[in-house]
């Protein structure tokens, strides 16, 4: 099962995504058998970045995640995972996209970046039991930006659409409240039957 979690800054999307990951791992094979991996994409440059990483580490504490730092080429994380049943929580697409677009030697176009990231995540989905992906809503501030930032916003938009198509479930987190945007077929049939 793949779940895509989207939300804005401070929306509570991370803590919701962790809850989903923990409960998926529990449901399927019992907590001990399934390995949980946290794929961290953020590159730390300063104090603020360190604080952010620290806050997220505290959120995850005691939940049994094994952290893999993977700022680019996210499917390489698969090589660092052990055998057996696994769940991966990838946080987050906005950092991954920025890293792929701006920190590599040869800059890539938004199309290439969107395509690469989608292919990588497809691989992750195929080779894990469960995949939870966190992405950002960077689309609604109404500001006009320079060319580079505009490219980035469009790449993010493309990636979110592609990932939503790949995902079994898509959830937007608003003020900490999960709003369901896409349900697995099984569940949507159940809901339709009730209406």
């Amino acid at each position: 099962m793949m779940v895509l979690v989207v939300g804005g800054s401070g929306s509570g999307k991370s803590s919701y995504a962790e809850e989903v990951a923990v409960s998926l791992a529990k449901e399927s094979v019992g907590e001990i058998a399934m390995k949980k991996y946290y794929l961290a994409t953020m590159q730390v440059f300063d104090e603020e970045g360190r604080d952010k990483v620290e806050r997220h580490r505290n959120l995850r504490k005691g939940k049994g995640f094994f952290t893999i730092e993977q700022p680019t080429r996210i499917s390489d994380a698969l090589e660092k995972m052990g055998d057996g049943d696994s769940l991966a929580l990838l946080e987050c697409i906005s950092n991954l996209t920025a890293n792929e677009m701006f920190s590599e030697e040869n800059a890539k176009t938004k199309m290439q970046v969107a395509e690469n990231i989608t292919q990588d995540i497809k691989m992750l989905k195929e080779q894990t039991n469960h995949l939870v992906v966190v992405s950002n809503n960077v689309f609604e501030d109404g500001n006009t930006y320079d060319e580079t930032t505009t490219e980035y916003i469009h790449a993010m938009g493309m990636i979110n659409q592609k990932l939503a198509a790949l995902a079994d479930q898509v959830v937007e987190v608003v003020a900490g409240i999960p709003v369901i945007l896409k349900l697995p077929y099984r569940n949507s049939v159940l809901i339709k039957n009730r209406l």
Partner: protein
Amino acid sequence: MKLIIGGTAQGKLVYVLQKYGLQENMVWDGSLPNEINDIERKRNPIIINHLHQWIKNCMISGGCPEDEIMSFLDCNEDCILICDEVGNGIVPIDPFEREYRERVGRILVQLAKRADEVERIICGIGQKIK
């Protein structure tokens, strides 16, 4: 407490006034009433509009909006809070703006937990999410 959120200019205040049959002169705009006298108490519920603006002003003046809003609610549980969602965009370069967006988001998460009802307004239409 009822929490009303949404983007700028989505008709949040009009929605609230119509839904609850209230007048605009009952609205506290970007401020929390310090002392509420008996006359104002009778005009329940208290409506606070532009809560995000109050949060920003509170930060600028060195206050702690997280604590202040919670202690306000302890004394005034029956109120309607209206706030813009400001976190759905590109992370600003300016550190203060960045912190402001993050704090508005986290305050809304706390308020949503405490609220009896949360509605998100889009195109003037209320979507009840709690």
